């Protein structure tokens, strides 16, 4: 007969294996080779990919610098980018780039970004319109979005 402690050990090992398998399958993917998925929108992973798309679509560019552990980034995702009206503007009028600062060190250095979150708005030609370092609440952020949209020209004069 198996001893109690042996049974406990086996139960623990099985629990750990089940956990590892389940967690590996259930953990959501936030980014793959081309896109990052924030606020259920597709964001390009690199500036170059975004710049190319912006030039083709003649839309202004939002370049968002973030990391997984940054609390104000989560606030951005939750309270700003996911808000219906803002999400709508982002989806319709902007080409989106999300730079994970832990992964894409090249673009982080290129735009000299020190800390997440950090947003840079650019024209479709890649000219910087404005920067928003740190967090900005939804209403103000929307205002900036609309002004950028207006000043960048684009589809809605």
């Amino acid at each position: 007969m198996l001893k109690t402690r042996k049974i406990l050990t086996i139960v623990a090992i099985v629990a750990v294996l089940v956990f590892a398998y389940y967690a590996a399958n259930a953990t959501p993917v936030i980014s793959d080779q081309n896109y990052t998925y924030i606020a259920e929108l597709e964001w390009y992973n690199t500036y170059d990919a975004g710049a190319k798309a912006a030039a083709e679509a003649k839309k202004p560019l939002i370049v968002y610098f973030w990391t997984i552990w940054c609390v104000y980034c989560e606030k951005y995702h939750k309270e700003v980018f996911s808000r219906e009206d803002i999400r709508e503007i982002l989806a319709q009028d902007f080409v989106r780039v999300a730079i994970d600062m832990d992964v894409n060190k090249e673009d982080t250095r290129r735009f000299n970004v020190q800390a997440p979150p950090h947003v840079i708005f650019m024209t479709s030609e890649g000219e910087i319109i404005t920067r928003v370092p740190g967090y900005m609440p939804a209403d103000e952020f929307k205002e900036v979005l609309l002004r950028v949209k207006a000043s960048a020209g684009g589809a809605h004069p």
Partner: protein
Amino acid sequence: MSIGDALLSLALLTGSATAALLVLPHQEKLEKLRRATLVLFASSLTAAFILLLYYFAISDFRIFYVWKFSSSAYPLYYKLSGALAGQEGTLLFWAMLIALSALWLERGEERKLAFVKQTQLVVVALGLYFTFLTFLQSPFTTIYEAFPDIPVGYLPEDGNGLNPLLLDPWMASHPFTTFLGYAGTTIPFAGAVVYLFTTARAGGVEGAAQRLWVTKGLQWLRFAWLFSTISMAFGGIWAYKTLGWGGFWAWDPVETAMLLPWLMLTAAVHVTLEHRRDRTKYNVLAPILVAFSFSLVVYATAVTRSGIFESVHAFIAGSVGKYIMLLVGISFAVPLALGLWKYTRIPRREEEDEIINRTNIFYAAILVFLITIFISFYGITFPPIMKLITTQKYAITKQFFNLWLYPFFLLMLLLIGLGLHYRESRKAEVLRDFFIFTLFTIVAAFIKPTEDYNIVDYTSFISASKPLLYSTIGEISSLSVVPPAFYIFYASIERWRFFASASTRRKLREAGVIAIHIGVALIAIGVVFSSMFTSEFSVTLNKNRIGEEKVLAQAVFHEGFGKLGTWGVHQGEVLTDYKIKLLDYKEYVDYGSASRVNSKRGMSIQEFRAAIARGDARSEYTVRGTVSRVLRGEHATFIKLSDESGELWVAADPSLRVPIGVEAVARGVPLRGVKTPDGATDVVLLANQVSDTIAQAFKKVQLARVAIYKGKAKIGEGDVKFEVYKNGDARRPLIDRSLVRDVFVVLDSPTYQGDLSITVRIKPLINEIWLGVILFVLGIVLCIFYEARGSEK
């Protein structure tokens, strides 16, 4: 070669000699030599570290490491803390502590035993390894070696400085406590490895000398445990105070990596105590867990420094990462292999086959602990590995840890209660209580007045998909932490009764044990309630409307079709009875201690003029003074420096920004007979540098004084600041503390068109965490001081 590198070379030499002499068969005549080399090994490393501290104290910016992490504007305390701000200094500190541990083993008659000698050999070998790493990446490298372009003899005006967020007394102490704790695991590791090896070789038979691994190791384990606890608390307090998002823990990979050795130490201390009671028990598991505490310490360093792992701390990634990874591998593999070897060599013994007894309960608790360690380990190790294999990035966020660890955390708390209460003689009663509290816990897990009680917040974007098991665990009510916490209080009181007639010494030790566990219960309550029931309000005030009051509205989220008819997460607002009032607002420039520092540098204007008149052959001058005017031209910025002795115009780069009223130090070449902006003809200093020191300490501060009301009662008042430094921003929140709650107010971003974007958080019971930590620390101290003697069987 510099003095520092010479000391490191001496340490390498004497350390190798000590190791070699320890390997050689024992010879009386070599004993003296061995002791001498060991003392030299430890003292050369200590001298090297003191030298490094000295370089920081005098701000010797010729040393690259000092330049990188310090500034002459800092007070001494922050200067010295720079010594552990980077990899080079930490490795040296660590090597020094390990060498000192090896020296500690020289004490007493026991040093002559083969067992102690072997342990010492392992310690010296580890010390040598770290010395070698320090040597590879020396903290004594000069800027001339680091930047070959810099002309030799050039002395930087000021250092690069620390990130302003790190300028905090808690953060300054954090690395010192961390590495004291880390280094404390070295002797236990060495003792455990030698114990496993020697007893395995002897077929499981252990002699009296082998027992030393417990008697010597246990106090070191507690020491390591104590300092790991303190260092995590310091880190948490710092994060809460300075990062501005109002939390003390974010499951950042480095935090998690630091939690791993702490958890392992906790398990190791318990198992080792159990092994001490009865040496036939856990004679494989105890040494393995003890050794793994050290392995996880090295792993934590690898996570911070190797650059493979992603985290806020990784900005100081270094080049010795691969050697640290190698040590991680070795330190896991060796004890594991030795443990397995020993396991196959010891004769199996018959166990008492009772399902519920002390041994089995204890064993179950240890297993639960090991599972939590595995989950945390997995959480930080899985994403980088998957990233390497699939290029996909998996979202392991705080929700992942909260979700998976919470059930085990509850089970652990219940088992702590049971363990504290357990007496073989009163088994039936003890078990009855255990089942009652377990039942309460299960019932409490279902009591949810609102969705806010769910332990995992699904409004976060990352949990967009909800696997069944996740939503099941995620919907456990956070009230479920209350019964287990009360069980621990209850069990502690019950336990105390058993010691009513014990000796004072025994009582004090027991008080330590109880304090530790009550501390855990308090921390559990504080952590769950402060993170679950924080009310958070975002509000915008305007700096021009002093005296304005605003009712705080809470954002609510729901998923469904919104006003525009699209599916998604929508935000609404609910008004509360909290109010905020803007009492005052101001903006100012704070020069820190820069002026004090500068008054010691350079010459006064009179001295400068006298030197010019004398026709000094110097080509460059450094002059100090107060900036009284600034004129910005196309090709130069003109700055007028003044002091009691006169005035002087300085021409500098057009991009230079210096505020009026600052004390500045300008360095450059004098140009005679120049027409100054005043219209006079005078000497002008053509500056290639205008004091960096000012800019370093210089910060622009936006300060709002606010008061928070709940109904009519004022619950908090104070200053909230947003500081802009040369090398970053810092939010300085208002934290109004009380035993029931903290009122936490933070300025989220710099003023935008006069608007102050403010977040107010009401965090209930958060101070119970700090109270719990204090009890915990006191408890360990009591256990260390009133260590049971002669309680071995």
